[in-house]
């Protein structure tokens, strides 16, 4: 049964990808990408990767699509027909694809429990992590503890993205003159519903943040969801109102603080005599130490991701407003 669902979803993905190649309407291309992302999230669920599916749905279908639409609003939605010959790219793709297919021929069969991937490193994560780290969600254990250094790197990547976007688009300064009343003034229904939903979305973000140890979720997803709540607010009520709640300057401080919080846990464990990010040192009882460590670093991730996603949105939205003024 799982295989059939898998196959149907994969076929739909293939159709979507093919459609993207030939469409010239970029708006449709971006929407199809959103669909592509949602479909792959479904495949991830079907392949037991619930955390990944959650993230893909929030990021790929959510944030990425919003950013792409924001870009389209500034750059126009039609792709011009090109005189490019598509021969060379086609050759490159065929060669690469052939190499990959050749590579698949010796791959371990799909889904077999005795594949090498499941034998060498992974068994310890599955069998020992509930005892060593003390969390039922193994993905969180591996993410935050065994491979905590990767996750620190991931947080820094997000932070670098914010540095890049702010450097490129800047944050609008006050003195740049009057901005038109933005937001959706006429949409009373939207305004009421948004007012109703935003607190619930933030509540849900907090649930995802702190429930990540037991179920799918964690700092990253929570940060994205919380940012989405404020994005909704900014869209419906207008940027100036949103700036009044959380200003871009404040976010610029908040994003690095998350990174510092994460690295700070590592430094503290070094001070306590362990290796960098060794949570066992944080408390008398190693399991308790792991708990403290994971909660704090997940919080750091959540803070950084929230601040970065929101400031990236602010940067794009300010650009859109500026171009509206002109």
């Amino acid at each position, binding site marked *: 049964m799982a295989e059939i669902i898998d196959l149907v979803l994969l076929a739909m993905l293939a159709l979507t990808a093919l459609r993207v190649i030939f469409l010239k309407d970029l708006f449709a291309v971006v929407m199809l990408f959103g669909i592509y992302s949602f479909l792959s999230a479904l495949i991830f669920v079907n392949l037991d990767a619930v955390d990944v599916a959650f993230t893909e749905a929030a990021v790929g279908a959510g944030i990425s699509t919003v950013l792409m639409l924001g870009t389209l609003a500034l750059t126009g939605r039609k792709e011009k027909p090109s005189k490019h010959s598509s021969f060379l790219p086609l050759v490159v793709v065929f060669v690469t694809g052939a*190499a990959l297919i050749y590579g698949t*021929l010796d*791959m371990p069969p799909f889904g077999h429990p005795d594949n090498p991937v499941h034998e*060498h490193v992974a068994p310890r*994560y599955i069998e020992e992590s509930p005892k060593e780290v003390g969390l039922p969600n193994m993905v969180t254990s591996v993410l935050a503890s065994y491979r905590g250094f990767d996750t620190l790197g991931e947080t820094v990547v997000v932070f670098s993205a914010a540095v890049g976007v702010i450097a490129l688009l800047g944050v609008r300064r006050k003195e740049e003159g009057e901005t038109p009343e933005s937001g959706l003034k006429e949409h009373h229904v939207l305004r009421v519903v948004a007012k109703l939903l935003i607190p619930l979305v933030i509540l849900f973000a907090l649930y995802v943040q702190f429930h990540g140890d037991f179920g799918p979720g964690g700092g990253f997803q929570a940060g994205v969801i919380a940012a989405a709540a404020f994005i909704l607010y900014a869209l419906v009520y207008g940027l100036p109102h949103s700036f009044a709640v959380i200003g871009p300057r404040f976010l610029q401080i908040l994003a690095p603080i998350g990174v510092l919080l994460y*690295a700070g846990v590592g430094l503290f464990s070094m001070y306590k005599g362990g290796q960098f990010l060794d949570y066992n040192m944080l408390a008398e009882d190693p399991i308790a130490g792991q708990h403290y460590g994971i909660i704090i670093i997940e919080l750091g991730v959540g803070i950084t991701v929230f601040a970065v996603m929101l400031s990236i949105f602010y940067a794009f939205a300010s650009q859109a407003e500026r171009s509206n003024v002109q």
Partner: protein
Amino acid sequence: MVEQHLSVLPILLPLLAAPIAIIIGRSYLSWMVATIASAGAFIFSWQLLLAALSEGVISYAVGGWPPPWGIELRVDAANAFVLLAVSSVSTLVLLYARDSIQKEIDQSQHALFYTAHLLCLAGLSGILLTGDAFNLFVFLEISSLATYTLVSLASDRRCLTAAFRYLVMGTIGATFILIGVGMLYMKTGTLNMLDLAERIHVYDSSRTINTGLAFIMVGVSIKLALFPLHAWLPPAYTHAPSAVTAFLASTATKVAVYVMIRFIFTIFGAEHVFHEMGMDIILMVLAIVAIFKCSYMATVQSNVKTVLAYSSVAQIGYMVLGISLVSVTGLMAGMIHIFNHALMKGALFMAVGAVFYRVGSVDIKAFNGLGRQMPLTMAAFTLAGLSIIGVPLTVGFISKWYLVTAALEQDQWVLAGLVLLGSLLAVVYIGRILEAAYFQKLPDNVDASKIKEVPLLMLIPMWILVLANIYFGIETSITTEAAGSAAEWLFQHTRLPEVAQ
């Protein structure tokens, strides 16, 4: 305390300083933070190199989880040596950047510049020190994202398209590496490099592993701008701010060369890559084509930064040529050239940045008559240029010497001749610029009194690099010892092809 954590500190220092620099937000203060962090990383990497030379291998288990379950930092002579080059150039560039970016980057973006620089340094150090194949990808992306930002900070609009092209190429490269690592993981069930090396032998003839190897090699080749995948490099180096070009040209591609060495020698084993897959021939041909094609391209450009950018691609050719010879001397020549090229290109791009600071252009015509107006800068340019050519008593000569020796060891007379011929092309492209500087007159419409030497803070780092060019060209024992033991170490810990023994 410090000694125990020596391997993680060079990554951690810039990583912690970057958020602090952006919180401070003031140009001067964040410059201070960045310089101190980078200097600290330099000191630690110096100690790390000494420790690695005496102890062999230093393993550090992040999070206290033993490898292969946790992430391991693994330091040996090879990566400590490259790390030293990276952190020293980074510190000098930061000193230089203080004045240099005043003319090229808007005041409000200085803090962002320093933050991005620190992130790039942290990423590069992470790539060098990590012993985990996936962790390498993460740090690769940190440094790449920071690099795209740095390139796009310049005021010329062309930097944007250059940065975009770099972003697309770089991401394709990184994704290829991701595919390759995935295939290795699929067959072996581990991501730790040492563990991979131990387990990969069983699958030598596996199509999956070989495809993985091919994808990693192509991905890394994009990152190190190996001909013909170098198209992103000349525009990016030409249009980035001078301080950024000086930093990137002397570090980013070199780190990618190191990654290639690491994958070939430590993970796959030289025997497999070179003997069974025949990659040495491919690399050698590409390297030679890169040397000649790009040296030629360098001779016909009118923008001096572009000249030097093409020269960089050619110099990368020399490094890859050293690797492709599959001998201790060849690898050593490649490693020495990583270090030496950082010294010479750093100095050259700093000198060009100094010209931009005063003249406001880096077209070859802008160099007319500068020999008299900016004697110190042009003297630095001349000496570093001689080093690129490979004149005796400079580091460039040392690199070429070992490369030719390695070629002659295998009776490759033609190859040795080609290396020397490549130097002739360097004479042409460096000579054109020197000719303009010393034998042309300052254009009449330029006010000679305005073109004078640049501030001391720009001159000092430039001259430190130039003097290093000469110092390490005469006192060769330090670099040859470090590079030699790195190369020997790599060869001892790999499976050798029979031909080289």
